[in-house]
């Protein structure tokens, strides 16, 4: 289970890094008439509190991935479990909000953002199953 979390959070990290690169490369600062990403990443919702949402995602996944790798060690501290649970819950809530904006405000979906959302939900689900299982038995 911990390996699954590490792999999925690694995928999330790679996608967020790509989205951050796209944000700063200016590749989407152009309207060509097609593509949900140009609408989503060019929208006013792509920056929150002066920080690009892509950078927030990258920062979050750097933390989640680092903790997921730490948890692969046999003597991983208990705080790592608590931290990855809290971070993946925060990530899931935030991507839920962003997906709502995509679907119901912008009416456009960026597949890469959906990828990050799927990774967040998966990490939260696997971590929750792992941490909650002892109390079920």
């Amino acid at each position, binding site marked *: 289970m911990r390996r699954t979390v590490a792999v999925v959070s690694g995928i999330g990290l790679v996608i967020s890094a790509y989205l951050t690169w796209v944000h700063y490369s200016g590749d989407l600062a152009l309207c060509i008439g097609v593509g949900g990403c140009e*609408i989503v990443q*060019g929208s006013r919702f792509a920056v929150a*509190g002066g920080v690009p949402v892509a950078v927030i995602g990258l920062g979050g996944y750097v933390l989640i991935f680092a903790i997921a790798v730490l948890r692969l060690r*046999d003597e991983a501290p208990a*705080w790592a479990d608590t931290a990855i649970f*809290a971070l993946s819950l925060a990530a899931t809530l935030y991507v839920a909000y962003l997906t709502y*904006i995509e679907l119901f405000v912008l*009416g456009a979906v960026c597949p890469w953002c959906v990828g990050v959302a799927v990774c967040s939900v998966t990490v939260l689900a696997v971590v929750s199953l792992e*941490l909650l299982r002892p*109390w079920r038995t």
Partner: protein
Amino acid sequence: MSPPRTRAERQRVRRGGAPADAARPSGRQLAIAGLTAVVAVVAFIALSGGGSPSPLASVGPGVRQSSHVRGLDTAPITIEEWADFQCPACGMFARATEPQVVTTYVSRGQVRIVYRHFAFLGPESQWAAEASECADEEGKFWEFHDRLFASQAGENRGTFSKDNLKRIGDALGLSPSFAACVDSGRHAQRVRDETQAGQRKDVRATPTLFVQEQKLEGAATFDQLKTIIDALIAAR
């Protein structure tokens, strides 16, 4: 006690250590961490201005603005911008780059910016462009331009419906004839003609800028434009 499940648990048991469950966070710890995460995300969304309209571009006082032109006719350098009011990249340019160009160059009479319609992203692009021409009849093209780019929210989803365009005009203090103008469609052909003129100039995407003869596709940053403009000024 349940048998050890994970590698860590088995190794701990073999070493005579405590089972891994003992090192797991308690339900209380997880509940506190989860609650903290929820509060943090909700607070961040609320405080980061999620969903609030973008700030209006501010060009400052003293900048001459006439129909589709910001700056003096005598300015030696012209930036011709081909844009669509629904295009997010045009919004980025209008909100972030253009005010800096105006402050640094247009206000000093070195540059003028000319806006050209390239309304190609759907019916609301066409209606918004027509409405900007109606606003121009009352000398408020640029105010309307700034307001549209600050109001973007998706494409062809009603943000720039004719009713909403009329509301934006009302908010800017335009006269009742503005609404009649929007409904009349009397600027429709002009917008279509200008878009076709853009196609003849090989405009394919927005924003497309022509700094004198140099073509730039996409929302150029201020630094990119500064490099080009400074070189043109130095070459004069």
